[in-house]
């Protein structure tokens, strides 16, 4: 820790003294961005063991370290933004692995992409940590919760700041671990512990892809540092060649696991069993976007493999539409938002899949705010429902408190939550001038401009679906009649001020974050497409390859019309859908969950999530269990334990018994055997 600080402080001074580096971007204590959350983890972890009742201290340490990390990230972003097209800065602290040709430093790569990611991560984490103080305040595992949450941020920052694939992989695995720990945070309920395991196991499939990609990269390029790989790749790989296609497809397999894309998305809805701030932080804002970051970071490799790009775009588009339709017919308040997250992640992959890296990262950033906001508004609602039902002495299990059929008309009881939820929903639906409008529009526009007509139509349909399901979510939760029950209704109340405060901050973020990248077609601010220009150095190489082989992107959509026109059309469409759904549903009478029937027909198909979980259970889980049963009963117990281990034992014992019969105790027998033996040996020698 001291060493890293010294490197951070002394290195720039030393370089300045010898005039080694040009005046450029000098990072400000980058190691502390990572060390602070780790420090928080150590302190909170110690408190969880030694003094779990010291809640005040935990409340200060947990969000505090994140606040400081956020300040450092913000300072660094300002520093790098002031330098035009700043070169990436590599800060190496020590040599981590050195075996033969392979040399991996524990190094941070500080460039535009990693700084923007670090800022989004620390900012959203900080707000969610503060919200957690209110949300988890009465939980007996308070200190443990903050220890895990801090550890998560530590690993997430390692993921985005690491300067090589293995270091990124450490973060990648670390966030997976924290995700597992936090989904199963209330591990005494088996459903929650199982959801954690599901997330972990499904992610292992993706991690296998990441590992294979790293092995292949090392085999072909001999290095795993980002800069080394991206410099060597265009020379080592033929455009569209098998090797680079294989590597990128393996990388994308990793992404489908971590970022919940088809076919590995099934863990994310189940991950909603964790505490709601965890869903907001890990399963909406940060960890699940790691896959998008990976594709953007490895943009050079993907640009060299057009087939992989198409796979990414198609999977992204398919996931966006697929998850969007499921969200239409879910009744769990968090599951709607969870499927929405999968759908929005699909959008991001759609963007990076057509080479619109900035659009993907832009949507990642805006989505982090409005999706965290929607989750935490859900959390506030669940919190209120839980308290109300508990006070009324009614069952307050997860299935009751999270079912939107038991809510309704909450705007009367939770006015601020209601307002912020509307802001988040409008941002998600892409209504001008909220954040989602700019980012989603840029994605749809880029897809169209790249000539992917089918995906473009899919993206537009999904955008309208998004507006539809999120309006349904709002209406069922906040409008109409209250269905909580006479007794519990009186106990409904607004969330704690600290939680409401966090919601308001996120709502502001959901409005303004979109303004960092206003398209040229809509000259609303003097400085447009700031993010695009800012991120340009990070993506220049990849974009250059794409333009070289596929030509410039078109300046019109597949059916004509410019960016401005389509932006207007899409926002108008979103508003029409919102109004339509709002009118259609606000008059509708919902029955409370315990009286309602399970939907049938097409709605039933959506309600049951296309039976994908059941399909996986039938095709993968059960055969796998049979194989495991076979391995256990037949191969392990039968063959290995029975035939091999015990078999050797029995054979030895039997042999010993047979030979022991010769040991009669009669001297005569021994002598006879000796003589016979001598005769046999003599006979053998002479013959």
């Amino acid at each position, binding site marked *: 820790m001291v060493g890293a600080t010294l490197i951070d402080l002394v290195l720039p001074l030393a370089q300045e003294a010898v005039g080694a580096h040009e005046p450029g971007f000098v990072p400000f204590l980058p190691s502390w961005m990572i060390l602070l959350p780790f420090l928080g983890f150590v302190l909170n972890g110690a408190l969880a063991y030694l003094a779990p009742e010291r809640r005040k201290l935990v409340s200060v340490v947990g969000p505090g370290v994140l606040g400081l990390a956020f300040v450092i990230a913000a300072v660094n972003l300002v520093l790098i933004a002031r330098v035009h097209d700043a070169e990436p800065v590599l800060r190496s602290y020590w040599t981590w692995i050195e075996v033969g040709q392979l040399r991996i430093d524990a190094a941070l790569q500080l460039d535009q992409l990693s700084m923007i990611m670090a800022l989004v991560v620390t900012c959203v984490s900080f707000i969610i940590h503060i919200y957690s103080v209110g949300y988890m305040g009465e939980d007996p595992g308070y200190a443990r919760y903050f220890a895990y949450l801090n550890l998560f941020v530590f690993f997430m920052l390692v993921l985005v700041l690491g300067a090589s694939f293995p270091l990124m992989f450490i973060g990648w695995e670390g966030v997976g671990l924290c995700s597992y720990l936090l989904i199963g945070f209330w591990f005494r309920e088996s459903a929650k512990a199982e959801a954690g395991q599901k997330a972990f196991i499904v992610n292992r499939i993706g991690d296998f892809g990441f590992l294979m990609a790293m092995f292949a990269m090392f085999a072909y390029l001999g290095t795993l540092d980002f800069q080394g790989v991206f410099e060597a790749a265009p020379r080592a790989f033929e455009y569209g060649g098998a090797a680079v296609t294989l590597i990128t497809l393996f990388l994308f397999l990793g992404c489908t696991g971590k970022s919940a894309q088809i076919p590995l998305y099934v863990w994310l809805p189940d991950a909603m069993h964790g505490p709601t701030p965890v869903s907001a932080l890990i399963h909406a804002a940060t960890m699940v976007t790691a896959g998008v970051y990976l594709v953007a970071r490895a943009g050079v490799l993907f640009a060299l493999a057009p087939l992989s790009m198409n796979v990414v775009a198609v999977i992204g588009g398919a996931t966006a539409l697929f998850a969007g339709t499921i969200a239409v017919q879910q009744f769990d308040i968090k599951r709607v938002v969870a499927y929405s997250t999968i759908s929005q992640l699909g959008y991001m992959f759609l963007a990076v899949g057509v080479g619109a890296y900035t659009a993907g990262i832009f949507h990642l950033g805006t989505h982090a705010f409005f999706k965290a906001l929607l989750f935490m508004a859900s959390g506030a609602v669940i919190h209120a429902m839980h308290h109300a039902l508990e006070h009324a002495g009614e069952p307050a299990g997860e299935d009751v408190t999270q079912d939107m059929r038991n809510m309704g008309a909450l705007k009367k009881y939770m006015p601020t939550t209601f307002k912020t939820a509307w802001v988040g929903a409008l941002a998600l639906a892409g209504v001008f001038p909220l954040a989602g409008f700019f980012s989603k529009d840029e994605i749809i526009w880029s897809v169209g401009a790249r000539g992917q007509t089918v995906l473009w139509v899919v993206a537009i349909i999904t955008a309208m679906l998004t507006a539809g399901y999120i309006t349904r979510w709002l209406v069922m939760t906040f409008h109409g009649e209250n269905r909580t029950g006479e007794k519990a209704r009186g106990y409904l109340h607004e969330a704690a001020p600290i939680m409401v405060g966090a919601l308001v901050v996120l709502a502001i973020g959901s409005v303004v974050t979109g303004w960092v990248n206003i398209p040229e077609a809509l000259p609303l601010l003097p400085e447009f497409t700031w993010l695009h220009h800012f991120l340009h150095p990070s993506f220049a190489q990849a974009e250059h390859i794409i333009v070289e082989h596929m030509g410039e992107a078109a300046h019109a959509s597949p059916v004509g019309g410019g960016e401005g026109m389509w932006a207007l059309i899409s926002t108008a469409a979103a508003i029409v859908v919102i109004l339509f759904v709002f009118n259609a549903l606000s008059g509708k009478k919902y029955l409370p969950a315990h009286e309602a029937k399970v939907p049938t027909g097409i709605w039933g198909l959506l309600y049951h999530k296309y039976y994908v979980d059941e399909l996986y259970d039938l095709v993968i889980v059960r055969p796998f269990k049979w194989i495991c049963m076979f391995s256990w009963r037949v191969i392990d117990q039968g063959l290995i334990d029975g035939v091999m281990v015990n078999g050797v034992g029995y054979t030895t014992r039997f042999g010993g018994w047979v030979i*022991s*019969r010769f*040991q*009669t*105790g*009669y*001297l*005569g027998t021994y*002598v*006879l055997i000796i*003589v016979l033996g001598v005769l046999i040996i003599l006979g053998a020698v002479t013959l």
Partner: protein
Amino acid sequence: MLFESLVLSGVLFAVGVAGVLLRRNAIVMFMCIELMLNAVNLSFVAISRYVGIEGQLFVIFVMTVAAAEAAVGLAIIISIFRHYESVDVRNFRLLRW
């Protein structure tokens, strides 16, 4: 001479083997073992005439070892006799499976 000597040695050895195999009296078995040793000694001496002095030299060693062995063996037999009042080898078959 060598042939006759070796035949005599072989006969003596065979007698010794037969004695050890067939007799039950420990003392007699012991004497038969001595007989086998001495049969071997005889062939050593006989062959040493043609090969060299080493054969005769070896006989001295064999006699030394045989004397030591006789001392140990007789001591064991005496202690067995004290225990069982007999030197029949069928009596002592405790060391078995």
